């Protein structure tokens, strides 16, 4: 009995080693393996701020084009608007694509990575109207939510969607 109690944590700790070592390198961003964890941390927060959550990837050309407009929200309205840039980059491309991109661009907004393979489930949880094409952006404030499956072409366009939720 005593032995079992001793051995169990030992086994568990060994089991967790591969998980930890997979992402052993320290990144400046969080990696979510489960959409629900991302949802709990970033979605449906009612704190009188406008939350903008953008799904993007370094391989998505229209995403890269609109990213500066979204990031400019943080620069201009940092305390009133919370922008989260959810990268859907492939985990094996973190070092070769995502990290160099972030180093080069020095974004002001929070970047996180979502690596949850069950896209058929979580796409609907983000918005039932989303087909899965990126870029895609969710804007919410105090329980009100708007969803955009489109590319923004200017900072004015991005400011507009923020004003719209604020009305």
């Amino acid at each position, binding site marked *: 009995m005593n032995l079992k109690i001793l051995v169990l944590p030992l086994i568990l700790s060994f089991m967790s080693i591969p998980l930890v070592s997979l992402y052993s390198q320290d990144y400046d961003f969080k990696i979510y393996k489960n959409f629900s964890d991302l949802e709990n941390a970033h979605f449906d927060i009612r704190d009188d701020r406008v939350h903008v959550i953008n*799904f993007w*990837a370094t*391989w*998505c*050309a*229209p995403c890269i084009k609109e990213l500066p407009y979204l990031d400019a929200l943080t620069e201009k309205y940092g305390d009133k608007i919370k922008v989260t840039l959810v990268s*859907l980059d*492939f985990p094996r491309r973190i070092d070769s694509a995502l990290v160099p991109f972030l180093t080069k661009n020095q974004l002001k907004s929070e970047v996180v990575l979502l690596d949850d*393979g*069950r*896209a*058929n489930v979580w*796409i*609907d949880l983000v918005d039932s109207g*989303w*087909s*899965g*094409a*990126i*870029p895609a952006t969710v804007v919410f404030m105090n329980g009100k939510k708007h969803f955009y*499956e489109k*590319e923004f*072409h200017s900072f004015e366009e991005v400011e507009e969607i923020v004003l719209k939720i604020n009305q």
Partner: protein
Amino acid sequence: MKKYLFQMSVLLLTMFVLSSATYTSNNDGYTIGEKASDFTLKGTDDKMHSLSDYKDVNGYIVVFTCNTCPYSVLYEDRLIELADQAREMGFAMVAVNPNDPDIQPEDSFEKMKVRAKEKGFNFPYLLDEGQTVYPKYGATRTPHVFIMDKDMIVQYIGAVDDNSKDASEVKEKYMYKAMKAIKKGKTPDPATTKAIGCTIKAKKA
């Protein structure tokens, strides 16, 4: 005269609103149970292809895909395997590149030819020239799969399977399952699925 002008502008405005409304509803694309229309598009073999070229089939598969989207590239080998399975199960399968080559030059007809040859595509790879087919179907991303039964009724819309990143981690082969169901005269379950993909490249309206 002024009154006449006012009436004219009201009429014009009404016409504009009505026309834009119909445009939007046409733009939504097919839903399950609707009849899909045929098309004639040029393939990388320089021949024109229509779904009606295929006689006595159990159904039709149209996969919107392209050269450039990383998700499309991830699925190339799986589509080659699925094309063999489709043939065995009596389905006609074609791939359609919906992107405007003016916006994405790597998706040009010439580049499609190169890619088809490199990968040894065993299915016609067609260019949606003028981008008339993908809006009709309602494709929004690549890859995006549409499966019709033998009467061209749409039975499945969505992803190839449930794991884009890793073929060995796939738990549900949506496309294969849908073919099996349609062949037996049953409704696919699920009939619609979602996956992350690349937006279709088109000029701004």
